[in-house]
């Protein structure tokens, strides 16, 4: 039944193509392809998609606008992104060119990236990530800011008030003239986040006078220990000398104070415990872009400073102060430098070279205990690692309808060199009518273990092998349209990846976890996208973006023992099917947005048991937004009402992590006119 519904939803997108007409807006239909993107499988997000849900994080934007798998540990809690049946640590993430994956964990928490701070975002699927970085065995998320802003002074203030006493405040101040541009953005979000939900994982007892259980029921509980206060500041300054040089400065400061929500299976009194993560991160990038008619160079330098404090404490007696049980401190300093060059000697040839360096200094202290001599001893590690990544590429378009691209990349992490990472891309226009283009790519990628994988205390395994991935994909895309009437584009891509020496953390008999290379994984499947823009009548517009992925990702290794039932089974927490559809209808100053996403059943065990804890049922999520713009002489006003989880679905993204039911938020945006 689920599959049938799925196909109907997909068919819906196709069906609409027969009734089209639309305002093209930001969709460009053209037969020419940028040489830089020959054969590249990319999903781009336009500014509408990024700004339509101002209070949402990039995790939500990606969940509703692409078919990558977003695994969320709760509202305002860790959210990770995985491509094509791989793990979150196989997703590389860059911000203004700088890799921002946590060097300790390898992954990125997308719940801490406000969509309000991102002007440009795109996904590079599979081999296409090699154009930007190595190690993206699943793909790469490219985030960035843009210097494009209106001339003169500009300001915007948005206040959001939502369910669970959620307050979101956004402000942006810009100034731009022909040479200088400056933007300051602030986001502050806070909420006790104590949404109600029916806890199906436990029952409360009803007792008689002799303490016999005479009844039980699933309690309606509140999300416990889920409060958050997040502050983000982003300052950008750009200088353009109008002769092809642009200097940029971007600084992003995060101060996040979040409680870690209790599990649904926890019987503790939340007032007895304080379980909290406090993160302060500064990311700064300076850049110089130098452009001439046939060549470009870019230099970037950056610095990241992250302090993550994790505190777990409890009150041992009424009125007593909290006593620390765990005090974990992680300090990361990262120095970043990058040089890139592009050269276009003719219309047929395009060369690039790049070298990026990330120097990490990590000090991770898990806790303080008495050492063997009775003094203070620290449990943790203090390590530095240089990560170099160099690449060269040549792109050739022998005829207008065909392009070839070869990328060679090599990386060095610490004192270990990766093998050469080659990636080959080809594309060609099969038919000018419909702009039907075929694309294919193949790569052999390589990923180094993270610093925690190697050195975490206790459990780090310095003997880990690197992960190797081989992937290829092939697909077709099309774009058709009629100016000011409609545009329709779509693509379908087959991909196939094999990853060896997959790193996974497993328990040990000593009571801690330790990473091992255990699996050979075969991930394959299909990705489809469809975008439709129609302008049916004057003043109306309709946008529909849909995506769907079928991603079998199976353990292709040898059986550990005769009892091992995991071989040939889908990896835990990788849905076979994921889909998202976003529809936007606009009429004059009104806009109605419907967002829908779907994840199929996810298994939590490698053997794909269909038991109560062995799987998470499929779920659909529906969000709607209604927006009205008002224009006054001194300012523009925008009123927006958003409903999340429209059908009040009780669902789980991760086992034992409660998710909110239907919730609302009202926004008022004020944009003064200068």
């Amino acid at each position: 039944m689920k599959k049938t519904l799925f196909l109907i939803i997909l068919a819906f997108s196709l069906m609409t193509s027969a009734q089209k007409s639309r305002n093209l807006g930001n969709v460009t239909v053209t037969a020419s392809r940028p040489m830089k993107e020959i054969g590249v499988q990319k999903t781009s997000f336009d500014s509408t998609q990024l700004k339509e849900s101002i209070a949402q994080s990039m995790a939500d934007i990606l969940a509703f606008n692409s078919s990558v798998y977003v695994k969320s540990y709760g509202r305002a809690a860790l959210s990770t992104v995985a491509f094509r049946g791989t793990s979150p640590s196989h997703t590389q993430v860059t911000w203004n060119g700088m890799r921002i994956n946590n060097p300790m964990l390898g992954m990125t928490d997308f719940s801490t990236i406000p969509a309000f701070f991102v002007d440009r975002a795109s996904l590079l699927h599979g081999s296409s990530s090699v154009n930007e970085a190595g190690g993206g065995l699943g793909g790469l998320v490219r985030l960035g800011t843009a210097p494009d802003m209106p001339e003169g002074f500009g300001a915007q203030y948005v206040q959001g008030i939502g369910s669970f006493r959620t307050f979101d405040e956004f402000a942006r101040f810009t100034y731009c003239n022909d040479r200088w541009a400056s933007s300051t953005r602030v986001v502050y979000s806070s909420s006790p986040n104590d949404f109600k939900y029916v806890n199906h994982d436990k029952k409360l007892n009803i007792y008689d006078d002799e303490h016999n259980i005479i009844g039980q029921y699933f309690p309606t509980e509140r999300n416990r220990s889920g409060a958050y206060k997040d502050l983000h500041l982003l300052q950008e300054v750009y200088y353009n000398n109008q002769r092809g040089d642009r200097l940029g400065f971007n600084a992003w400061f995060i101060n996040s104070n979040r409680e870690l929500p209790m599990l649904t299976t926890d019987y503790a009194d939340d007032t007895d415990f304080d379980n909290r993560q406090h993160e302060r991160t500064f990311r700064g990038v300076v850049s110089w872009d130098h452009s001439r008619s046939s060549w470009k160079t870019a230099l970037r330098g950056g610095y990241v400073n992250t302090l993550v404090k994790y505190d777990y404490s409890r009150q041992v007696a009424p009125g007593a102060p909290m006593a620390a049980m765990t005090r974990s401190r992680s300090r990361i300093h990262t120095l970043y430098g990058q040089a890139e060059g592009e050269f276009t000697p003719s219309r047929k040839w395009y060369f690039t070279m790049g070298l990026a360096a990330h120097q990490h200094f990590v000090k991770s202290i898990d806790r303080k205990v008495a050492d063997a001599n009775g003094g203070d001893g620290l449990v943790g590690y203090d390590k530095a690692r240089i990560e170099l990544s160099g690449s060269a590429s040549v792109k050739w378009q022998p005829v207008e309808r065909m392009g070839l691209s070869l990328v060679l990349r090599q990386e060095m992490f610490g004192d270990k060199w990766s093998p050469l990472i080659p990636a080959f891309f080809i594309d060609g226009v099969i038919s000018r009518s419909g702009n039907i283009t075929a694309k294919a790519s193949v790569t052999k990628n390589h990923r180094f273990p993270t610093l925690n994988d190697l050195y975490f205390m206790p459990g780090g395994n310095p003997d880990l092998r690197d992960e190797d991935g081989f992937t290829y994909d092939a697909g077709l895309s099309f774009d058709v349209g009629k100016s000011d009437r409609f545009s329709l584009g779509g693509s379908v891509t087959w991909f196939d990846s094999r990853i060896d020496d997959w790193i996974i953390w497993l328990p040990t008999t000593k009571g801690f976890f330790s990473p091992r290379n255990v699996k050979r994984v075969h991930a394959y499947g299909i990705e489809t996208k469809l975008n439709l823009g129609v302008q049916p009548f004057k003043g109306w517009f309709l946008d529909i973006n849909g995506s769907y992925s079928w991603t079998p990702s199976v353990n292709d290794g040898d059986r550990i023992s005769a009892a091992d039932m995991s071989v040939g089974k889908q990896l835990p927490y990788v849905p076979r099917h994921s889909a998202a559809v976003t529809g936007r209808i606009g009429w004059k100053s009104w806009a109605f947005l419907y967002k829908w996403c779907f994840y199929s059943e996810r298994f939590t065990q490698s053997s794909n048991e269909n038991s109560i804890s062995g799987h998470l049922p499929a779920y659909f999520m529906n969000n709607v937004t209604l927006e009205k713009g008002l224009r006054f002489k001194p300012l523009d006003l925008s009123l927006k009402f958003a409903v999340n989880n429209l059908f009040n679905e009780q669902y789980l993204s991760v086992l034992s992590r409660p998710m909110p039911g239907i919730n609302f938020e009202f926004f008022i945006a004020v944009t003064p006119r200068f």
Partner: protein
Amino acid sequence: MKSRSALFVIPVLLAASASCMKWDYGEPEDFTAHGEGLFIVCEGNFQYGNSSLSYYDPQTRTVINDAFYRANGYKLGDVAQSMTCYDGRGWIVVNNSHVIFAIDPVTFRETGRITGFTSPRYIHFISPEKAYVTQLWDNRIFIVNPSTYQITGYITVPDMTMEQGSTEQMVQWGDYVYCCCWSYQKRILRIDTRTDRIDAQFETGVQPVSLSLDRFGKLWILTDGGYDGNPAGYESASLYKVDAATLEVERQFQFRRSDTPSELQLNGTRDTLYWLNNDVWRMDVRSTRPPVRPFLKERDTRFYGLTVDPVRGDVYVADAIDYQQQGMIYRFTSDAAPVDSFYVGVTPGAFCWN
């Protein structure tokens, strides 16, 4: 125009009709488990909340998996650590759910629960009205009244902070309970059960993790030796024999540095020791030399739990496989002949004989 309207209406209807996630919570089942049986506590994965309880009847060789959930209609919780059967009830300590469930061992139905713990590990009964519960990240052993399901007091461990707190397995000899302090510790406590006070303690090697008391009044203590970089020390694991009366160390068997012994167990007559060290090992408690060959050789297995049938002497060893799927229990006779094998829940780590 009609078709355009449909364009807007269809997705809404589809979404509405397809918006319900299917939950599989069923009605509690009725069970009647007769005779002596073996409970297998499967700890599951940390923070997954997927612990489970299995029940095995050695006579009929039948197994009931997910017994707690199926009998009660809700989950056992996160990281079920241990289980103790006492006075006609089974007491399951669910570490990261901060709860101890009491169940009827025949129906598997809950009869009560004790909450308010920091990070409970093991429960040891002194009487029907008093039991001790050890903790991680707490410098106190909790005293509970099992008949009222209340915490009634604490035994504070001297020279131990909350942050480095760890009290673990317990055994009783007369009026004294001995408790090993494991994580970042290296000592054994002696608690006088008449006063609920620690009246003696002695030092062992680094991180004593497992504790048994043989029929001759000797404590057997297994240390895991810590790990490289452990501020409390890193050394080879050891097996200690200590006189419970005098607290004198009578013997120490040292393992190789790479060894990771665990799960010290005794047979029903309490004269034969068993433990895991990749393989399963066995030693007479009167032996003066450690065994040179394992009792059972591992065969691509990851042994994680061990018990010995107190009546038949059969040895049960739990294989966690990859820690992410149903584990396997292998049953052998005391002569190491295979008898049976059966799947249980994820990461089977502890046993309890009813």
